[in-house]
């Protein structure tokens, strides 16, 4: 599988993301934001975490106009698989590839810690190796990760099995670190080829560093 990881000025998780997919035996190419095309044969695009363009104006507001994003949007619209992690998730909602919007965390602090997540729907590529209700331990690190969507949009997300993950404690009881609606940590689009989440699975791939629960998630994209 060929994984293209987009790199914007201010991106800081591209090496971790590359490392994670290479550890899973995949070929990874870093693609600079000024490129207008994705590498030939790209199977998965990852928009990694960081602070693209300084997150000026709003998180990821400027990144969506990068040359590479035009190619990513076209790729997604043709059914190509796209994973947005943290700042990448913010890019996907800013680019309207995913519904909703991101707001400042409810407690106004930047939160950087391990957090438990509960799998809500697994009938998709990303979480197919996880079971519904399973609790995963994955780091979060964001200041604007409070997911917002209007009530009708929220209903639709549940009806179409687009809610991927919610924040919880180690027993699976809802626990909301940032004020996201329904403690939602990740969603996908209706066609289930575009995935976004605030937590960082690429930072949870070795048990010695706290958790390897991210492996299970990322392996969903592998054959």
């Amino acid at each position, binding site marked *: 599988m060929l994984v293209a990881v987009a790199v914007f000025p201010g991106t800081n998780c591209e090496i971790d993301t590359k490392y994670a997919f290479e550890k899973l035996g995949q070929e990874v190419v870093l693609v600079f934001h000024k490129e207008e095309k994705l590498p030939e044969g790209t199977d998965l695009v990852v928009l990694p975490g960081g602070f693209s363009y300084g997150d000026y104006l709003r998180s990821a507001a400027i990144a969506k106009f990068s040359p590479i994003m035009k190619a990513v949007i076209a790729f997604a619209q043709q059914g190509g698989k796209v994973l947005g992690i943290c700042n990448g998730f913010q890019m996907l909602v800013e680019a309207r590839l995913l519904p909703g*919007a991101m707001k400042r965390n409810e407690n106004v602090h930047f939160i950087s810690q391990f957090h438990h997540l509960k799998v809500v729907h697994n009938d998709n590529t990303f979480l197919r190796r996880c079971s519904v209700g399973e609790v995963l331990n994955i780091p979060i690190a964001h200041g604007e990760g409070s997911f917002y969507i209007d009530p009708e949009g929220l209903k639709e997300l549940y009806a179409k099995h687009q809610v991927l993950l919610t924040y919880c404690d180690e027993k699976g009881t809802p626990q909301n670190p940032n004020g996201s609606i329904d403690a939602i940590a990740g969603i996908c689009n209706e066609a289930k080829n575009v995935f976004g989440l605030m937590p960082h699975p690429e930072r949870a791939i070795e048990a010695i560093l706290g958790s390897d629960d991210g492996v299970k998630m990322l392996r969903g994209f592998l054959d």
Partner: protein
Amino acid sequence: MKVIVNIQLKNGVLDPQGKAVHHALASLKFDEVGDVRIGKQIILEVATDDQAKAKERVTVMCEELLANTVIENYTIEFPAC
């Protein structure tokens, strides 16, 4: 021509910064403050004398970039100067 764009979170969308500032004002005994909403102001220098045209262009700027209309409202003003 100077154009001022004011951007606020929509009514009903919780403003955590406003809430924090409201709390701080209350702790300073400014009890008369009922609510605080924090927005942002963007001041543009637009190369035109045509106000209608400027408004039309700035509206597109707001829709495409300056505001996230999922959660934010914006107003466009022309200061008298």
